[in-house]
């Protein structure tokens, strides 16, 4: 049996990939994908600990988070569509009107 360390390292790697995407990319769609990656990193953690303790609750949470992620993507895509309509591209550094 694999020890949870492998899962946790995998999770950290996926999380860092997502974080790197958010910090470096300017395309809103890539933003959305990066956020999904980070979310899934958390999911991996939930499943790993559920597996470790033999408790099914973590897996249930994982299912919930997936449903949540699906809903979030729907909203995210909506936001990106509006962004495109207003600024004619999906570059996040262009949409800076909501500031002082």
């Amino acid at each position: 049996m694999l020890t949870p360390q492998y899962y946790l390292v995998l999770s950290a790697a996926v999380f860092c990939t997502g974080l790197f995407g958010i910090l470096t990319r300017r395309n809103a769609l890539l933003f959305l994908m990066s956020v999904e990656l980070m979310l899934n990193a958390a999911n991996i953690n939930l499943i790993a600990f559920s597996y470790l303790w033999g408790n099914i609750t973590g897996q249930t949470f994982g299912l919930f988070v997936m449903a949540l992620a699906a809903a979030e993507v729907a909203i995210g895509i909506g936001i990106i569509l509006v962004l495109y309509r207003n600024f004619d591209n999906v570059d996040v550094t262009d949409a800076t009107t909501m500031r002082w």
Partner: protein
Amino acid sequence: MVGIFDLAPVIILLPFISFLTALAIGNRLPKGGALTGITATGGSLLIAIATAVAVSGGRVYTATIYTWASGLDVVNLTFGVLIDPLSAMMLVIVTLVSFLVHIFSLGYMNDEGEVGLPRYYAGLGLFSASMLGFVVADNLLMAFMFFELVGLCSYLLIGFWFREPGPPSAAKKAFLVTRFGDYFFLIGVVAVFATFGTAAFSGSGSFPALAEAALLGEAAESVRTFGFEPQLWFTIIGLLILGGVVGKSAQFPLHTWLPDAMEGPTPVSALIHAATMVAAGVYLVARMYGFYALSPTALAVIAFFGGFTALVAATMGVVKREIKQVLAYSTISQYGYIMLGLGGGGYVAATFHLMTHAFFKALLFLGAGSVIIAMHHTEDMWEMGGLKKKLPVTYYTFVTGSLALAGIIPFAGFWSKDEVLYETLLHGLDGNTILLAAYAMGLIAVFFTGFYTFRMVFLTFHGNPRSETAREPENVGMNIKIPLTILGILAATTGFLNMTPVAKLTGLHIEFLHKWLEHGFTGLTVEHYGELLHDVAGYGATGIELSPILPGAVSLGLALAGFLLAYQLYNVPEPVAHTDRLGSLKTMVYNNYYQDEYQVWIATGFTQPLARVASKLDQGVIDGVVNGVSGVSLFAGSRVRRIQTGIVSNYAALLTLGLTALLVGLGLMGGWFV
């Protein structure tokens, strides 16, 4: 069973209802609300007479009607009614004069085709109601509230013809000048509450009674004098309240509003001068006489300013051109006499003069109103002359009033003025030099009074007509003649109510007013005031006896001298302005001794710069500190907000950095890296 005293509030309510009616539906009423006003004041007059009859039977009445604020321990703020001989007498005077003025207004306002009559009658109704409320007030705070209402009504009525330039300005002046005095009155009221915890006029817990107990050293812990000697502190309070009296009763130096108030309709002048506004001041002193009698200093101040005002105003009356101006200065002068009487220890004399003056001054003003109608609203006496034949009723009643005003025996003014002077002299001879000085000024003023009164009569009614309108004057109706006749009879006869010199000579008990004021609440009677004056103020301490004959003869002689001088100079077919011979003196007197000028200078030359400096301080220093504090916040905010770039990546980076810093911090503290 409803006693007559239970109807006392109705006396006030009737004119108030008339006010509301005239205000609400006055335009649809016949005569613009005059008839409701006449009915209301007539009803009040009947109840007031019935009340006076009940009081003459030896009954008095006091009741709290409404407590509008009850304090935690002792201070209650209430409205109440106090009916004693003094207030019953004043109720009759006020309702009678108000009733007659309403009738007269039919002739003066309605027949002359004035507009805005509902406003006029509403004002008259409220004016009467507030004065009656003031008269029956059973505590000082209620008196103050109605005092202010009276001031408001005078503002509304003096400024009745607000489309012309003069009246609004006169109304503002009357309001502001009396308000200046009322400012001190208000402080006085607060001082009374702070000192005694009550402002009631009558009863053992009233403030005059408490003050008396405190002065006599009887334990009165509830009296707080804030570290002053009781005598000194009571004098201070008395003088503060006197500020309101000086303003309302048009005493020097706050008399300047009254001559300007002549801009109002003449019936209003009659009401202001005879029964309401101006009478309110001296009535207040009479009402709380038990308090003033405790302070010789306050009494001396009252007497001195009264005598001074009587003299100064009388000299100003000598040179005036307009008939109403002469009457205005005579009012100031006569109220000076009343103050002189109060300060000189002549409580009955002053009350007596208040009553007789109410009648003859109302008569003179209504007579002047009649002349003004006849002259098509010309008031300059040099345009008149020879009106005697054309206006017989007005002439004879006016002469009656003038004889009373000048103090010619046996008309009303002689008896009361003589008694005022006699009492002052009597108490002054005890070695009170201030009273003697005040008496001397009052005595000299008698001469001027006789002179200016008959100068006015001769210029108006005698000689040849000096203008076209004086040759063909307009006729006046019955609604003018009836009030004049009633007041003429009263002005001729009310003097017989209290003929002290005759009583002293013959030994007959005919001092009816004295007897009238003898009964009443304990502590509010003439005897009690006499004891206080004797024991505390030291009036009559040496027990000098003085026959009233000689002082009476002197003042009568002076009045006659004034009359004869006026007769010599002005009872000729074509009189000339003899006062012009006074040269620059006349200019000074005609300009009222430049009283207005210096008061205007105080306002513009002193108060305004001071206010400007205060405004600078407020806007510069105080606002500067506040603005500085907010300026720092604003500046800091404008810098700090720049971290909100609007770029999502920056926010994410900051979030990450923050989380990392947090984790590193936690790790260092928790010792993870060891």
